[in-house]
């Protein structure tokens, strides 16, 4: 087997083929709520599997209640180039005049979500980013 190409020695690994569907998404799947109840951005995330793909349904906060952003397909990322453990995902919501690119990673049970909001219209608004933290809802502590 020839040595794989790499741009950092961390990537110099030989492994059986690991396809996206081989990566365990168990820790990523669930309903996530923003740890900040006063958020002005994404308040809730639903992460679920459908047709072999990891899907993301996002809800943003507003004074009138949650705004449903709809569902988009994510790209799943493992913890390393020879790992089958899901560690995060990326996703994009395209609203036409604006775009929200999301980069999510799991840290000690929290979902850390980096949000990159890019404006594509002529409004002159500056692109901005946020990092917010989400907890997976469960009933363990309410039993």
């Amino acid at each position, binding site marked *: 087997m020839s040595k*794989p*190409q*790499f741009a950092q020695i961390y990537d110099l690994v030989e492994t*059986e083929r690991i396809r996206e569907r081989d990566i365990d998404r168990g820790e990523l799947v669930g309903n996530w709520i923003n740890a900040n109840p006063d958020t002005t951005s994404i308040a809730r995330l639903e992460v679920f599997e459908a047709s072999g793909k990891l899907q993301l349904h996002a809800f943003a906060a507003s004074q009138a209640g949650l705004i449903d952003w709809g569902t988009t397909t994510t790209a799943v*990322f493992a913890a390393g180039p020879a790992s089958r453990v899901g560690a995060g995902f990326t996703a994009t919501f395209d609203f036409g005049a604006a775009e929200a690119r999301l*980069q999510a990673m799991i840290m000690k049970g929290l979902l850390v979500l980096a949000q990159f909001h890019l404006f594509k219209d002529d409004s002159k608004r500056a*692109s901005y*980013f946020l990092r917010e933290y989400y907890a997976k809802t469960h009933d363990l502590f309410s039993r």
Partner: protein
Amino acid sequence: MTQADVHNANEVLGRWLNTNHETRGISECTVARDGDGWSVSLVGVGEDGPIQWPTVRATPLTNVEEEAGQRTMALLATFDLGFMRAETHVRLNKGVFVIVLFVTFLDDSGRANYLNREFLYRQP
């Protein structure tokens, strides 16, 4: 506000070195600014010496909320090396320069797409 007005933008300029001397990933990063344009270059750790990644244009984004009592900025940059693509963002957190990489392999090596973080400090 325009992208040129990103808060504390100049704080990320310069050469940054990995805090982990034994990293097998990114050893250094250089952020430069040319007019309103930004660029990021990375150096990876190789078997026989450093591997220079291509310099790419970056998109600056301002942080609209304070985080840990500070306001800073982030840069989005994508490195396409043919056999792999790394979608990255870099940001400052209390003087630590954080790089987050989402690596997608485009070759037939079977390696898993993965994410990684590196922490760098400003070259003295």
